[in-house]
């Protein structure tokens, strides 16, 4: 049978010192271990989400030949401003859900711009506008933009390209915040003036956003078709967005707690054995008595 003993001493004594040192070492060491092995709190985590990307059916195409420049866009006002350079276009747009998860992930786009002489185009700038919505962690609505610029030494009349829309973030997402500041329209359709139509300014404004998307082109090819007009064929994939975020308080606390308790248990055991050894062998002067003795005396 185990006899429980209690040790007594005055407040200022070696026994008190031993108690203070063992308690500090027991409860402080797990913190030190956690801090020096990659930090106590988790500052950043990532997750992947298939965002809902929707093509807005809005585009601006700027075609440049050696002498002429042509514009075709879905904005009525732009077409009116550049009425000399404007050429009408026919668009075929299909958005597909190839992996059948309910969210579109492939855009097949074909734009045919008529009224352009055979094989005269060497340079193209294409802006496509999308709406992207993230909703798994916090709500983020983006007006996102895909920009393609391509140059060819040979005069051509058809462009094929494959690309992927990727998410670019300069700030970590925070929990349960609805981000509305990124859903404004880059080009206000009803009120376009010449100053707002500066491509440099549009791109700079867009790229200085904290959250945006980029078009990464895997492959671009130019062709001669010996036909009038210019044709753009595009396959654009909506890749799952990899988003890094700051974990909320309870998520951080959970992992901190697990780390702390896991490394605390061995320390408690070891220091308990040490304390028992010290007090049982009277290494520091204490008055030791059994519980039964204590009861009798009181």
């Amino acid at each position, binding site marked *: 049978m185990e006899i429980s003993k209690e040790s007594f001493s005055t407040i200022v004594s*070696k026994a008190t010192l*031993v108690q203070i040192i063992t308690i500090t070492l027991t409860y402080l060491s797990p913190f030190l271990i956690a801090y020096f092995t990659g930090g106590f709190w988790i500052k950043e985590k990532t997750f992947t989400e298939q965002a809902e990307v929707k093509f807005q059916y809005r585009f601006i195409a700027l075609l440049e030949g050696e002498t002429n420049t042509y514009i075709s866009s879905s904005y009525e006002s732009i077409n009116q401003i550049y009425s000399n350079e404007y050429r009408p276009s026919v668009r075929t747009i299909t958005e597909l859900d190839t992996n059948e998860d309910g969210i579109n992930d492939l855009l097949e786009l074909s734009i045919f711009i008529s009224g352009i002489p055979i094989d005269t185009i060497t340079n193209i700038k294409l802006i496509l506008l999308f709406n992207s919505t993230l909703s798994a962690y916090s709500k983020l609505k983006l007006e996102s933009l895909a920009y393609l610029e391509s140059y060819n030494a040979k005069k051509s009349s058809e462009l094929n390209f494959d690309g992927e829309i990727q998410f670019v973030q300069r700030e970590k997402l925070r929990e349960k915040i609805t981000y509305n500041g990124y859903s404004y329209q880059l080009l206000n359709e009803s009120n376009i003036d010449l100053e707002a139509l500066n491509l440099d300014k549009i791109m700079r404004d867009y790229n200085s956003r904290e959250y945006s998307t980029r078009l990464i082109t895997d492959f671009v090819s130019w062709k001669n078709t010996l036909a009038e007009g210019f044709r753009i064929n595009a396959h654009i994939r909506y890749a799952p967005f990899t988003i890094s975020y700051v974990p909320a308080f309870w998520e951080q606390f959970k992992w901190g707690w697990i780390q702390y308790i896991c490394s605390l248990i061995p320390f408690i055991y070891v220091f308990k054995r040490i304390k028992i*050894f*010290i007090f049982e*062998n*009277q*290494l*520091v002067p204490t008055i030791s008595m059994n519980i039964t003795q204590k009861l009798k005396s009181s």
Partner: protein
Amino acid sequence: MGLKSVQNGLVPTRFMCMLAHMVMLISLLIRRNEYVGSCDTVLYQNVNLLNNQFIIGLSISIGILAIELVTFITGITLFNTFQSLISTFLHSSAAISLSIMVFFKWCSVDFWYIFGFCSCIPFIFEIIFLIGIWLFKRTIN
């Protein structure tokens, strides 16, 4: 009292911890170039100075430890339980941290923390006990 400290293993433990500390110090002294060489060369540009400092630190701790071993073995502080406790705790920590220093190739400047906490403190306590015994005629326990 004396027999009890041998029975509960305090005296052999203290002896083992001090010897482990001594072994670590001597092995560091022999292969000190590795630890001087792993210092940040931008912060510490004078390697010779570092080497000399490291030799001095190691020699002083070996000397201090030797004095402690002598007072321990001759029996002056052999049966002093509190001194045994401090000595065991700090010298075992020193041996563990020095072995970590060997494993992770610490810079030789980091040795001074170990020197301060694990060599000087037990030596100061030892001196206090010696003074108490010789000048103020305290008992050996």
